[in-house]
């Protein structure tokens, strides 16, 4: 069992937990992920590592409930435990590897974070800060209440730009508008961009950075089962090649990703997951005899 030391809401529907997992904490690097399984009947849920403390042996995860299993996660309190917690999985971010540090130091780096994807950006920016690199960060959120980790970022990044879709906080508009403004109107130049957030945001972010020939890395979070390369569920098209996000990624060259195909694959279990979530929320009463799913027969 993997004990939950801290559990709480970051904002809106976004939850944060600190979990005791010494083997993971000892070896993980920014960009990698873990797989979490709450109990015997739960799914294996891949979550990008959002912070780690090697001495304390803890990992921080941030999530938004999207299916039956993650919905159950939200009920857990400090003192509870996950049945399974495995990692670190995947390749570390290429920016956050000691061997690449000299190269990284020469670059002007921009992070573009959106929604719950803001959380996994944090350990990368923090790692760079600890290694003497100040990266600029754009955080995008729907509205003021959903902006997360602002204070933590402020301590470790270069310039911090916050934008909300509704203009209720910081700048107004999508992250892509901020990229355009920074580069065309505010005289900023960047050599490297990392974008983590909803698939649709990463897609448009990549379309924008492509205009400026700004190399952009994205972190894919497709459907997975084992997370070790065994099932192949997480395959994504990168250029002409089929890659497994769990072992080859999760970070890839965003300009080579086929986002439309990836988004369609993401929707594969939508009905099944949706049904499981409904069943959890409404018990058996969700079978209202709609005649569509056959569940009332």
């Amino acid at each position: 069992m993997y004990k939950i030391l801290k559990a709480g809401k970051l904002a809106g529907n976004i939850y944060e937990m600190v979990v005791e997992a010494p083997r993971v904490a000892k070896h993980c690097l920014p960009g990698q992920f873990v797989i979490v399984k709450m109990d015997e009947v739960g799914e294996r849920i891949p979550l990008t590592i959002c912070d780690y403390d090697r001495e304390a042996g803890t990992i921080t995860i941030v999530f938004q409930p999207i299916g039956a299993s993650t919905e159950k996660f939200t009920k857990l309190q400090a003192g509870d435990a996950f049945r399974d917690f495995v990692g670190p999985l995947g390749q570390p971010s290429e920016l956050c590897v000691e061997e690449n540090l000299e190269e990284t130091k020469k670059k002007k780096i921009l992070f573009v974070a959106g929604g719950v994807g803001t959380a996994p950006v944090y350990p990368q920016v923090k790692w760079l800060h600890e290694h003497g690199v100040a990266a600029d960060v754009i955080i995008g959120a729907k509205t003021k209440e959903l902006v997360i980790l602002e204070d933590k970022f402020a301590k470790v990044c270069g310039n911090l730009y916050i934008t909300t879709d509704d203009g209720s906080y910081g700048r107004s508009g999508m992250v892509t508008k901020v990229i355009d403004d920074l580069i065309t109107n505010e005289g900023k130049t960047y050599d490297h961009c990392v974008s983590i957030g909803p698939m649709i945001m990463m897609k448009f972010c990549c379309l924008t950075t492509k205009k400026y020939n700004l190399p952009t890395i994205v972190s894919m979070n497709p459907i997975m089962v084992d997370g070790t390369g065994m099932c192949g569920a997480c395959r994504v098209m990168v250029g002409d090649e089929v890659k497994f996000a769990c072992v080859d990624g999760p970070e890839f060259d965003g300009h080579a990703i086929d986002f439309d195909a990836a988004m369609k694959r993401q929707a594969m279990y939508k009905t099944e997951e949706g049904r499981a979530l409904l069943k959890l929320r409404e018990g058996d009463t969700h079978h209202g005899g709609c005649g569509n799913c056959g569940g009332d027969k």
Partner: protein
Amino acid sequence: MGDVLKKVPVREQEPKVRATNFDEVCLGYNKEEAMEEASRCINCKNAKCVTGCPVNINIPGFIAQVKEGNFEEAYKVISESSALPAICGRVCPQESQCEGKCIRGIKGESISIGKLERFVADWARENGIKPAAPTEKNGKKVAVIGSGPSGLTCAGDLAKLGYDVTIFEALHEPGGVLVYGIPEFRLPKLDVVAKEVENVKALGVKIETNVIIGRSITIDELMDEEGFEAVFIGSGAGLPMFMGIPGETAKGVFSANEYLTRNNLMKAFRDDYDTPIVRGKKVAVVGGGNVAMDAARTALRLGAEVHIVYRRSEAELPARVEEVHHAKEEGIIFDLLTNPKEILVDENDAVKGMTCIRMELGEPDASGRRRPVEIPGSEFTLDVDTVIMSLGTSPNPLISSTTIGLDTNKRKCIIAEEETGKTSKDGVYAGGDAVTGAATVILAMGAGKTAAKGIHEFLSNKQ
């Protein structure tokens, strides 16, 4: 007394009934049936069956005990050579191993060795007979990577010799392919696999799940920091292969590994588990091995019409004869001498069909099997909404790429000496699919056994 030339028939669930459930298909022998079948054995002095067994079980020896009704003795005879008899009795390809060599098989049907082994193992379990833990420990620590057939066997053998053994398993349940790959209806998880794992633990073996060697910790760290004096790698062949045809990343295309893992390890077929699975209406399974049969029969039980699409003919199907027979009885449609060319998708990128081409057998290829060649102009569309690719697997490079000085061949398999399991790295041994590429449970067990001997010799000489 029945016909001595024929096997005592084994009871099975009716095909029509079992096609709708996940309970075990074969019900096994009872005492009387087992003793009758055992009495057909002529107890050859120079028993050929033993040479056909990768772990050389004293087959006439245990059968002689069954004949007399001494089932506990029979279990002891088997246990000298095999740590997982309830599993092997169910999943070994007996027709090409022990039973293939049986003298009885020349004029009539061979002895039903697999079913007898299964009976003995099940009897022992039901009667609470467990292998005895060693009384003396030698205090030397050995790490075993992977809790599949090779790892469990190697760990069990080393524990019997007094070693302090820890198995590291990447998934959340021990058992490897026995748990994620082979379905419930062929190998019950709670009653058989979990019990065999318990038996290995009863020997003093510790199992740590959720540890991915190469990521959570490396082999070098296990040896340098955690005090393991030797390591056995039994990490299997986990990476699925795809064909590389158009449409393969579409929704509704799965590797057999994913499909089976969702259903077997993650229990998608049970309502009380959260795991989703796509229940296709018409499913094509591409491939002809045991894994293909398992995927096909799983899809059938989940309510689909299922086609096996295989490019060679029935004679070349690599699956166990019993699996093919069972699949046919249950209503799986075999589209033999047929090969996929393209997976057709709709506007949402979901599978709407598969273009296939008819094949014929040409000259024998390197494998000795006649090579299938396309018949020009014979393309047709198979009406399916789900495609499961079961084309084989290759070893995961995670361990070899993170271990200094561990050599692999061009197929990414770890290079290990056949007689000892020794790899290019001092103190590190390997066996099973990680070395051979995808093979069988019993061959992996054989390799685990060999490596246990190799490790014992290495650690005994190292002072």
